């Protein structure tokens, strides 16, 4: 067999080996049946799944932050909503009290003595209410300030002491004090502070408080009453100066004058010092409230759950924070150990 012959022979053999058309169809049918029976075409796994199948040790590091989020997120959300609920319940009294509902003391309607009729209830915003009817300067007018402030403080004893110090600093004095020391400490304080320092005092009061629960300040203008007293005294003085008065008439006028002076003195006292009633309550955290209202078992359960959540957070937070160092560190160490083993 020559070279050409060999190739020709091989080609002929190749032809002999070649399948028939029927054979090709039969095989195709088998393939089709096999594909339909078994599978869909299997796709090449993605680069990400390849990476994770190669570096399985990374999976826990990725699961950890997800778990942390899953655990902490509801807690954070729930915690916020609970705090909001608490806040709402605390703020509610303040919000619900409208101007019409403010309990106005009797002396508030003392208008007939000053000849001005009923005085409107004034709030802090109404302080600049224009009653400058007789030419007296606004700041010089005799005003009677009274009010009630309800505050919450974090450390009751400390803040109560602080409050007294402020009072002394403002040259005020205490009229009445009452302290209840049950589970939640609360106190009641009736104080008098110079009208000039009233605003400064209330501002400092707000500063030391955790939250101002409610605040109601009333201002009554007594300038007209004061002027009336002054005018009456001046009238009496004029009458007393007139000649021809009998002894009994003089004595009567003197008595009237003394009474008016006394009333004027009282009025001056009332307008020189403002009266403020302060209700101080100790601020209670939500957890403490729960424990206070709930029974012992639920309290214990809440404590245990809270403890374990704290423990978990204390574990997870450092692990997550150190991940950027831990992972490369681990990889470098692993490479180093492998090299060491190889060299050995």
């Amino acid at each position, binding site marked *: *067999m*020559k*070279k050409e012959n*060999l*190739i020709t*022979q*091989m*080609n*002929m*053999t*190749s032809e*002999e*080996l*070649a*399948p028939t058309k029927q*054979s*090709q169809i*039969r*095989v*195709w049918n*088998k*393939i089709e049946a*096999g*594909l339909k029976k*078994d*599978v*869909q*075409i*299997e*796709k*090449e796994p993605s680069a990400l799944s390849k990476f994770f199948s190669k570096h399985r040790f990374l999976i826990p590091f990725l699961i950890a932050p997800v778990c942390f989020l899953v655990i902490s997120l509801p807690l954070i959300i729930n915690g916020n909503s609970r705090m909001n609920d608490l806040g709402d319940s605390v703020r509610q009294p303040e919000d619900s009290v409208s101007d019409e509902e403010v309990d106005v003391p009797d002396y508030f309607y003392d208008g007939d003595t000053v000849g001005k009729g009923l005085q409107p209830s004034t709030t802090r915003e109404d302080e600049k209410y224009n009653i400058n009817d007789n030419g007296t300067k606004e700041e010089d007018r005799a005003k009677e300030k009274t009010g009630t402030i309800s505050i919450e403080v974090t450390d009751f004893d400390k803040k109560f002491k602080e409050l007294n110090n402020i009072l002394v600093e403002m040259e005020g004095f205490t009229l009445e004090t009452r302290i209840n020391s049950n589970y939640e400490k609360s106190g009641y304080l009736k104080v008098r502070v110079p009208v000039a320092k009233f605003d400064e005092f209330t501002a400092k009061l707000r500063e030391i408080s955790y939250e101002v629960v409610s605040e109601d300040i009333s201002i009554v203008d007594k300038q007209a009453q004061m002027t009336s007293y002054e005018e009456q005294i001046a009238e009496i003085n004029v009458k007393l100066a007139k000649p021809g008065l009998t002894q009994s008439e003089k004595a009567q006028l003197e008595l009237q004058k003394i009474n008016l002076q006394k009333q004027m003195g009282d009025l001056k006292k009332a307008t020189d010092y403002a009266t403020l009633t302060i209700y101080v309550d100790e601020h209670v955290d939500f957890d403490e409230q729960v424990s206070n209202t709930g029974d012992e078992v639920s309290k214990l359960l809440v404590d245990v759950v809270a403890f374990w959540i704290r423990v978990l957070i204390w574990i997870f937070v450092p692990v997550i924070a150190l991940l950027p160092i831990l992972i490369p560190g681990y990889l470098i160490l692993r490479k180093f150990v492998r090299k060491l083993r190889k060299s050995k």
Partner: protein
Amino acid sequence: MEIHSEEKELIKRAQLSDAAALKKLYEDNFKALFKYVKYKVDSTETAEDIVAEAFTRAFENIGKFKAKSTFKTYVYTIARNLVFEWYKEKGKVTHVEDIDMLPANEEVESNDKSKEVKILLSKLPEKYKKVLEFRFLFSFSLIETAQAMNLTVANIKVIQNRALKKAREDLQ
């Protein structure tokens, strides 16, 4: 060794489960694969079964096929393994490389029309025999032969030349 862009396109379509593309790939490569398997197992029925199984496996895993080699080489590798399994079940081979030695001299039937060629090829060195088989029996291109044998095209050309020279010398 880049594969033809037309085949690349077909593979891409086949990876998206395009039935027409799958059929085209089958039609383009069936003949050569069948020849190879039939040559090795010497039975049309068995060859049909093995080729069908080889194509089925190739299509199932076409998603993983990166088209770095030709599709024919890919299916050939599967078919070669299936032939090995078939022979292994019969207890005739223990290693997949043994497949390349088949059919052995004693297995060649006396009434086989290609007897002469088989005897001649079996006398040649393994590499030479394989190149000639791929090139002239199974109709593999130079590239496909190179890929199937894990050699370069230049190597295949040299081996083919030397193999034919050796065969001629043996004949004389």
